[in-house]
C-alpha cells in the first residue's frame, strides 16, 4: 500500500520507519531537536526527534502551527527529488533550493543522522497527486 505525500497516513508510516531504523537510532543518538518539514503552499510534517527516536510525528495542515528548532522548506518538486534520492538535502540547502530556518552548523555536524532520516523517508511507499 502506498501513501499520499503529504498526508497523516504518510506521516504515520514515516514515524514507524524512523523508530524501526537501527541505523537512524545509532546516527542520531545525540540529536535533540524538533523539525518541521514544510511543503511550500501546502502542509507541514512535524517531527520531535530525540536521541535516535521520533517521540512524535504530526501532519500539519498549517505548517506554521508550531515553532520548532528547525524548519526546512521546499516546494513539492524539490521534496519529490529528495524522496527519490535525487537531491542531497545538504546540497539543496547550500544552493538555497531548500530553505533552512535554524542552525546550519548543527545540521552539518549531524549529517549522518540527516541522511538516515532521509533514508527512512525514502522507504515509505509514496504516491503524489
Amino acid at each position, binding site marked *: 500500500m502506498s501513501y499520499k505525500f503529504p498526508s497523516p497516513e504518510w506521516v504515520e508510516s514515516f514515524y514507524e520507519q524512523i523508530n524501526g531504523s537501527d541505523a537512524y537510532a*545509532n546516527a542520531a543518538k545525540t540529536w535533540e531537536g524538533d523539525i518541521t518539514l514544510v511543503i511550500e503552499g501546502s502542509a507541514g510534517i512535524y517531527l520531535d526527534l530525540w536521541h535516535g527516536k521520533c517521540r512524535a510525528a504530526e501532519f500539519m495542515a498549517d505548517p506554521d502551527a508550531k515553532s520548532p528548532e528547525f524548519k526546512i522548506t521546499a516546494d513539492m518538486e524539490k521534496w519529490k527529488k529528495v524522496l527519490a534520492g535525487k537531491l*542531497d538535502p*545538504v*546540497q539543496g*540547502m*547550500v*544552493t*538555497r*533550493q531548500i*530553505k*533552512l530556518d535554524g542552525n*546550519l*552548523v548543527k545540521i*552539518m*555536524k*549531524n*549529517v*549522518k543522522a540527516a*541522511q538516515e532520516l532521509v533514508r527512512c523517508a525514502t522507504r515509505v511507499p509514496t504516491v503524489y497527486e
Partner: protein
Amino acid sequence: MWYFSSPFVVFGDEALSHLEQLTGARALIVTDATLAKLGIAARIEAAFHKAGIETRVFAEVEPEPSLQTAQRGAQVAIEFAPDWIVGLGGGSPMDASKAIWAMYEHPGLDATEINPMVTLGLSKAKLIAIPTTSGTGSEATWALVLTDAEEKRKFSTGSRELVPTLAIIDPTLTQGLPARITADTGLDALTHAIEGYVATWHNDFSDGLCLKATQLVFDYLARAVRDGNDLEAREHMGNAATIAGLGFGNANLGLAHAMGHSFGSLFKQPHGRAVALYLPYTIDFTTNAVMGRYADIARFVGFTDGRDEAEGGRLLAEKVRELARAVQQPMRIADFGIDRADFREMLPKLVEYAEQDTQFFTAPRIPESEELAQMFEYVYEGKPIDF
C-alpha cells in the same frame, strides 16, 4: 544545481608584480608577525605603493586564528577603509582575512553566523589571497576556520561570496620554506586533490582539477622537500595547491579530513600532517568496498594502465605511502609519540569529532561508529585497513 566558484588567478614568475597594475586607494594586508618580520609584507606593500595605493599591515594573525583576532582586524579595516584586503600567509591569515572582509563590510556581524545560505552583499572591498605555503588552498575556496578563544571552540564555515577576488601564486614566496612545512602542506594538497576527486559532491568541473593537482604533487613534492630553492618544483607545488583548492572547494572532501581534523584538534597536531596521515588508510577502506574512483587517479598519474577499480585503489594507496615515506611523514599515530593509553582514552572523542566533521558525509564510503574506531586503532599501529 551546483556552482563553480573561482578567484582570478595570477601565477608563475613575477606574479606579485600584478599588484602594481591594480587601482584603488588603500590596501589592508592581513598577515602574521613572522611574515612581517621576514619582510614579506613589505614586498607586498612596495608593489602596492608602485600602484599608488596606500597600505596598512595588520600582522596579528596567530596559528589557528581566533574570532577575536579577526574582530580586531575588522576594527582596523573599519578605521582604514581599504578597497583591497589582502590575506598574506598560510591558511590562517587567509582565513582570517575572509572573516575580516565580511565584518568590515558588516560591522557587528557575528562571524559564526556566516554560512552559505546568508547573503553578505560585499561591495566596499575586494579580497586578494597570497599564499606563502603550498597546501591549504584557502586562496581558492570559500571556507574559513576560526577559533572562538573565549568559548574555546573551533568553527568551520564559509560563503561563496568569500572566495577571494584575486589569488596570486608567486613561487618566490615559498622559496626556502623548511622541509617539514613543505612536506606537511604538500601532502595536505595531495589529500585535497584525492579526496576532492572521490567526494560524493565531485562534478565535471572539479574532476580535472583534482586529477592534475594530484599528478603535480606526485611529480614535484619530493623535489621541493629535498631542495627548498628548487624554483621549478616550488612553482608547480604552488600551482598544485591552488588547483587542488579549486577542485575540492567545489566538491568538498572526505574521511581523511574528518579523521585528521578530529586527531589534529584532540592531539594538537598540524593540519596537513594530521590529514595526510589518514589518506592511505581511507583509500584502503573505500577500496575494500570497491568504491571511490581511485583507479582513474592511478591511471591519470601514470601508475597503471589497468581499469580494475580495486587494483587501482590499492596501487594509489601504496604510492601515497611511498611519497609520505620519501618526505619523512609519520606513517602511524604511534609515530607522533602518542602513548597507547592516552590514545585509547581519547578514542571515543576521536570517533565523535570525526563523525561530526563537515567533510565526513561526502566520503564515498562512510564507516559505522565501530568501524571508525577500528580504523583509528589500525592507524595507531600503522596497519593497512583490511575491512
